[in-house]
């Protein structure tokens, strides 16, 4: 019993460290990557005893600034909701990670440990339930500020997130039809097989259209450029207008955590999660017949590393998209969501169903 709780706590610590560190580092990645893409150098002035460490200390400087800044609350603001708004936002961004598998089973002392925080058999549904709640933090914060501009930002956010919520669910139905399960660990295991004996059966190959649509909708869900009409900090004023200090910091952290979240879900559903090509539970089985036996701990390590690498790639991709594309206008967001993505994903479901029926 105690052992079981200890293992759960260890896994929890691992997942939280993974997510929060990535979230924090993303502020650094955002600065440096945008700088590199634009032939600049990027923030590099924060230093400890003259050591600058290519600007990494700016992350710490940010945190110190956020915590020590005055957290101002407007007189007219709804006290309770205004205070818990950012918390709700961060909470629902974080709890989604509970069902993301980051590895297969690890065997320590004859005890099998499932490298997934909560092996829920409704994994994908839970994810969408949580993602659907994320809009509450935004709308509550915006409404509780008692500021009309913030409220407008909140309205834009709710309209966008609810529209894309529909598309988010529909885009992956095609994949779920192929996987025949909604448990994420099972989905990842399914992707461990090969096509024609050599091609890894990853979701991106089975559902290329679904993959592109899901990534688009995912980026829209994380409210970052090019879908940042809810925020539009510099021009149209976003929902967190009245927040300062850590309240604002938590909204910003939510965006970054959601970026990690979208990467993790995309990897799990479409890029084989923790799968390494040709790596089975007992080592590599290459298609040309060669095998390479590996211990269980080495396999688990490779799997966690593979998952991390894939997530990092998608973080990079999302950052590149964020610093390449300009913002969509509000009507363009709505048109893209309702008139293009939703019909295309419905057609995708139809075609997937046809192919599955024909192949039977």
């Amino acid at each position, binding site marked *: 019993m105690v052992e079981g709780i200890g293992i759960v706590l260890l896994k929890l610590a691992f997942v939280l460290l993974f997510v929060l560190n990535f979230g924090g580092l993303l502020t650094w990645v955002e600065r440096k*990557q945008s700088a*590199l*893409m634009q*032939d600049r*150098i990027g923030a590099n002035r924060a230093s400890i005893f003259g050591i600058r460490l290519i600007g990494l200390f700016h992350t710490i400087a940010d945190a110190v600034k956020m915590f020590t800044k005055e957290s101002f609350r407007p007189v007219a603001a709804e006290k309770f909701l205004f205070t818990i708004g950012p918390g709700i936002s961060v909470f629902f961004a974080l709890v989604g990670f509970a069902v993301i598998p980051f590895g297969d089973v690890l065997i320590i002392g004859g005890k099998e440990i499932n490298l997934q925080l909560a092996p829920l058999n409704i994994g994908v549904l839970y994810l969408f339930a949580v993602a659907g709640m994320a809009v509450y933090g935004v709308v509550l914060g915006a409404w509780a500020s008692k500021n009309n501009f913030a409220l407008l930002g909140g309205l834009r956010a709710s309209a966008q997130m609810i529209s894309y919520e529909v598309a988010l669910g529909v885009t992956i139905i095609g994949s779920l039809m192929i996987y025949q399960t909604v448990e994420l660990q099972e989905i990842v295991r399914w992707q461990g097989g090969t096509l024609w004996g050599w091609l890894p059966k990853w979701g991106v190959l089975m559902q290329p259209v679904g993959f592109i649509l899901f990534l688009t909708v995912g980026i829209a869900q994380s409210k970052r450029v090019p879908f940042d009409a809810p925020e539009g900090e510099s021009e149209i004023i976003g929902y967190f207008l009245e927040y300062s200090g850590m309240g604002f910091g938590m909204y910003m952290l939510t965006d970054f955590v959601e970026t990690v979240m979208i990467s993790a879900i995309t990897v799990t559903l479409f890029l084989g999660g923790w799968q390494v090509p040709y790596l089975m539970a007992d080592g590599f089985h290459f298609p040309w017949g060669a095998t390479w036996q590996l211990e269980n701990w080495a396999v688990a390590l490779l799997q966690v590393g593979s998952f991390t690498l894939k997530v990092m790639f998608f973080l990079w991709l999302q950052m590149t998209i964020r*610093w390449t594309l300009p913002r969509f206008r509000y009507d363009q967001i709505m048109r893209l969501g309702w008139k293009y993505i939703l019909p295309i994903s419905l057609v995708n479901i139809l075609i997937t169903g046809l192919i599955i029926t024909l192949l039977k």
Partner: protein
Amino acid sequence: MNIHDKYKPLTFWEKLYLPAIISGLWLTSMHFFRNLTLHILRALRLRKTADGAVTIQYPEFLRPLFPRLRTMHRLTKRDDGTPRCVACMMCETVCPAKCIYIIADEKLENPEIEKMPESFDIDLGLCIFCGYCVEACPVDAIRMDTGILEISNLTRKGMVLDMETMLNLEPMQDRYVKYTKEGEIVSQEYLKQDLSK
């Protein structure tokens, strides 16, 4: 692009968005990987010439100033060290920001010069650096060629330049860049220095 092309309906290829997005991503990520490689090579001391960025790290490295750039004012002197200014009030009159304050005085010891300034103050907090004072001056007594750009002070009063200070300022120094008599830049050594330190 022709202005009329802007209003042409999009072709199917353009309406797909994805090809355009991919070409945009290709462009930006090529910049990213090129600059990343250059930065890493520089950090490993394998390559010193090419830079991954066009940034000039300002407080450590200064960029060349154009010789005609208008910077902080200075007053020129005669050969005997007295100010060249004859307190004609032309600059004070022409100044659009009304930031020049001159109090005139008689110059008794030299009958050829009727007036000289008793005090000559410029409030840099108001100055807009238009250079009209330099244009208006009939005796070339005021110039804006010191090359001093970092003008700041903690009080408003500290922003006021008095005559004593302005008389002692020198023309643009080597600190920024060297010039020939024709105003051409001679030395750019600092541009070749290692920027990564």
